[in-house]
C-alpha cells in the first residue's frame, strides 16, 4: 500500500500552507452588511429607503438642534440671533427650567428640598425594587413617605410625626389582635389611628407652622415635573396594594365583598379619568364649606389612585385566572388558610405573570398625570400651555418646550420599562 502511494503521487506537501484570510465579502463589516442589510433585493431596497428616511430626518433636525440658541431672553431675540437661519430657541429652557421642573411658585431657595426628597426616594425604593438588597432597608422605606411629605410641604415637623405615630399605632394594634380575628385587628387599627390623629391634631398648636424649620409650602404652589413625579409615585404605590385587594375581592366567595369590588371596578373603568379629575376639582368644592375643602393635591391623588387601582385589579385578576386550578387545590391540601395560601402560593405566581400588565398601567398612569393641567394645576404640561406660552417673551415656542417635556417623560418611562424587563428575567423560573 505504501509503495503504491509513494509512486502514484507526484508531489507531497511537507508543510502546511499559511491560512489565507477569508474572502473580503465573508468577513467583518462587509459580511455583517451583506447578511443583515443587503441579503437579497427587497431587503436592499428597504435598507436604502430607510437610510434615505434617516438622512431626511437628521438633516432637518440636526441643524435645528445644533444651531440652537441658549442665551437670549425672548423669542424675538432668538430670531434676531438666528437671522433667518434654521435653529431652535432653547433659551426658553435656560430661562424657565426651574418653572418647568418645580412650578412657578415653589420658593426658589427651597429647591433642595424636593431634590433631596427625590434622592431619598431612590434609597427608599431600592429595597422594594431590588430584593437582593438587605431587608433592613425596608424600615427606611416605611418612614420615607413622612420624610418626603415634610421635605416637600414643609411646615411643622409635628404633622408627619403625628401621621407616622397614627400609622404605627394602627400597625401595633393589628399585630396584636389581627392574629386572633382579622376583623377586630382591622377595625381596631383604624380606630387607633383615628384616635391618635384627632387627639394629636387637637394638641398641635395652630401656629406650629409659623416658625418651622422648613417654611410651609401650600399644595397650590407645587408644580412642574415635580408634580408629575409626585403624583405618579404616590398613585402607583397606593394603587398597587389597592388593586391587589380589589382583584382578590372580586374573586371572593363572599357576595357582599365581591359585588362591592365588581361595582367599584366596573364603575371606575367605565368613566374617563378626566371626568374623575373634574369631579375632584369642581364638584367637591360645592359640597364643602369654602374654608374647609380637602387639599386639591389629595383629591387628585385619591381620584387617580381609584382609577389606576381598578385597572391594576383587572390586570392582576388576569394573572390569578392564568394559574392552574391545581395551585389553589395544592394550597388547600397543604392545610394553609386563605391569607397564607394567597401570600405564599397564589400571589407570587399571579403577580409574576402580571408584571408586564402592571408596568403598562404604571407607565400609562404616569403619563396621565399630565391631565391635571385641565383642572388648572401647573404640572409640566400645564406650565408649558399656561404661564410659559402665555408670556410675551415666549409665546410661540412650541417644539423646544414640548420636546423637553417628551424627553423628561421618555427617560422615566423607559427606565420603568427596562426595570420591568430586568424583573421578568430575574423572576423567570420556567424555561431554564
Amino acid at each position, binding site marked *: 500500500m505504501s509503495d503504491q502511494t509513494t509512486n502514484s503521487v507526484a508531489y507531497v506537501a511537507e508543510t502546511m500552507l499559511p491560512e489565507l484570510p477569508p474572502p473580503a465579502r465573508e468577513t467583518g463589516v462587509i459580511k455583517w452588511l451583506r447578511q443583515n442589510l443587503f441579503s437579497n433585493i427587497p431587503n436592499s431596497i428597504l435598507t436604502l429607503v430607510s437610510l434615505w428616511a434617516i438622512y431626511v430626518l437628521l438633516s432637518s433636525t440636526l441643524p435645528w438642534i445644533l444651531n440652537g440658541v441658549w442665551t437670549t431672553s425672548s423669542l424675538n431675540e432668538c430670531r434676531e440671533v438666528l437671522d433667518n437661519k434654521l435653529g431652535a430657541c432653547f433659551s426658553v429652557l435656560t430661562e424657565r427650567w426651574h418653572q418647568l421642573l418645580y412650578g412657578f411658585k415653589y420658593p426658589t431657595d427651597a429647591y433642595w428640598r424636593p431634590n433631596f426628597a427625590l434622592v431619598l426616594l431612590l434609597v427608599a425604593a431600592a429595597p422594594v425594587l431590588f430584593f437582593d438588597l438587605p431587608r433592613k432597608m425596608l424600615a427606611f422605606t416605611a418612614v420615607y413617605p413622612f420624610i418626603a411629605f415634610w421635605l416637600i410641604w414643609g411646615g411643622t415637623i409635628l404633622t408627619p410625626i403625628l401621621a407616622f405615630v397614627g400609622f404605627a399605632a394602627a400597625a401595633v394594634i393589628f399585630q396584636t389582635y389581627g392574629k386572633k380575628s382579622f376583623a377586630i385587628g382591622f377595625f381596631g387599627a383604624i380606630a387607633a389611628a383615628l384616635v391618635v390623629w384627632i387627639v394629636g391634631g387637637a394638641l398641635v398648636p395652630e401656629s406650629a407652622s409659623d416658625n418651622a424649620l422648613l417654611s410651609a409650602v401650600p399644595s397650590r404652589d407645587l408644580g412642574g415635573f415635580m408634580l408629575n413625579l409626585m403624583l405618579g409615585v404616590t398613585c402607583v404605590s397606593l394603587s398597587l396594594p389597592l388593586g391587589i385587594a380589589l382583584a382578590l375581592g372580586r374573586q371572593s366567595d363572599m357576595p357582599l365583598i365581591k359585588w362591592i369590588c365588581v361595582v367599584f371596578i366596573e364603575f371606575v373603568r367605565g368613566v374617563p379619568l378626566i371626568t374623575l379629575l373634574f369631579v375632584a376639582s369642581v364638584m367637591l*368644592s360645592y359640597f364643602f364649606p369654602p374654608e*374647609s375643602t380637602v387639599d386639591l393635591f389629595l383629591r387628585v391623588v385619591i381620584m387617580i389612585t381609584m382609577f389606576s387601582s381598578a385597572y391594576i385589579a383587572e390586570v392582576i385578576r388576569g394573572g390569578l385566572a392564568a394559574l392552574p386550578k391545581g395551585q389553589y387545590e395544592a394550597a388547600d391540601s397543604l392545610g394553609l388558610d386563605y391569607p397564607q395560601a394567597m401570600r405564599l402560593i397564589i400571589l407570587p405566581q399571579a403577580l409574576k405573570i402580571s408584571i408586564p400588565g402592571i408596568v403598562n398601567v404604571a407607565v400609562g398612569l404616569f403619563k396621565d398625570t399630565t391631565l391635571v393641567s385641565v383642572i388648572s394645576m401647573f404640572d409640566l404640561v400645564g406650565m408649558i400651555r399656561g404661564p410659559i406660552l402665555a408670556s410675551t417673551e415666549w409665546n410661540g415656542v412650541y417644539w423646544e418646550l414640548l420636546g423637553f417635556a417628551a424627553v423628561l417623560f421618555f427617560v422615566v418611562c423607559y427606565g420603568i420599562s427596562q426595570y420591568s424587563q430586568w424583573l421578568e428575567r430575574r423572576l423567570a423560573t420556567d424555561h431554564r
Partner: protein
Amino acid sequence: MNNSVFFGALTVAGLAAGAAAAGTLDDVKARDKLNCGVTTGLVGFAAPNANGEWEGFDVAVCRAVAAAVLGDSTKVEFVPTTGKTRFTALASGEIDLLARNTTWTFSRDVDLKFEFVGVNYYDGQGFMVPKELGVSSAKELDGATVCIQTGTTTELNLADFFRSNNISYEPVPIETNAEAQQQYLAGACDVYTTDASGLASTRATFDDPTAHAILPEIISKEPLGPLVRHGDNEWGDVARWTLNALIAAEELGVTSANLSEMTSGTNNPEINRLLGTEGNLGEMLGLEADWAVNALSVGGNYGEIFAKNIGEDTPIGLARGLNALWTNGGLLYTPPFR
C-alpha cells in the same frame, strides 16, 4: 394645622361653614388676602413672569381691588382657573372675584347667578389674513378657507356673518390657538378668526408680524369684565367702583406720576372726592378714605395699565379702539363719583 393634608381630610366634616354667612368684604378683610381668579395664562392679560409673579391686564384689576380693600396690592392669592373651572370656583366661594377675560352674556349674568361689575376690555371677533392675499375687507373673503376653533361662539358668529353677507367659506376646524397658529402659518387656511385681542397676540409671535393684517370688521360683541357672585351687593360695589375709579382717573387726568401731588388737594371737586380728600365715598363703600389712591398707586389709571400690558408699545400692540374713553370716541364711560 388646617392646611395639612391629613387633617384637612379628617376635619372636612367637622368644620362649620361660619364664613359663608358674613359678607365677602368682611371675609376678605378678615383673611387679609383677596382670592382672585385668573386664567392659567393668556398673553398680556394674565401670566406669571420668570420670577413667578403674575402680570397682565386682568391681573391689574385684581391688584387694584386688593389695594383698595386691603391697602396692599401684594395681598392677592391668584387662583388660576381654566375655562371649565372658572364659574364653579367663583360659585363655590373658592375665589372672591373672577377677572379672567370672561364675556358678559345674559345667561352668565342671569342664569349662572353672577354679577358682572363692568367691562375692562371690549373685545370682538376679527379676521387675520396674510397681506399677500391682497384682501382689505372681510366681505372680500368669498370662498376662503377659515381656521376656526370648534365648539366656541366664534364658530356660530362666523356662520352668521358669512350667511348675512351672502358669501361662502370653507371651515378648517382646529382645537387650540397653538394649533391654529401652526395651521395658519403652514397655509392650511387663508384666514384665521378669533377674538381681535387674541389675533393681535398671536400675530405678535410670528416671525414677520408685518406680513399679516387684521381686517377692520369686528363681527361680534365680546365685552370682557370682572365678575362676582350674585347676592352680595356690597362686595359687588367695591369691585365695580374700583374698576370705575381706574377709568375715572384717566378721564380726570390722574396718573401714577401726579397722584401724590393730586392727593394733597386740587381745585377739581370730583378729583378730590375720588381721592378721598373731600366727601366720604370710601366710608360709604366700607373702605378707607384713600381707597382709590391705593388702587391707583398700583399701576396707575386705566390708560396706563392698558399701555403697559397690551398697548401699542408692547409686543401685543393693541390699539385703544373701542377701549378709548368716551371723550375719545371709545366706549369707556364711568358714572360720576358723587
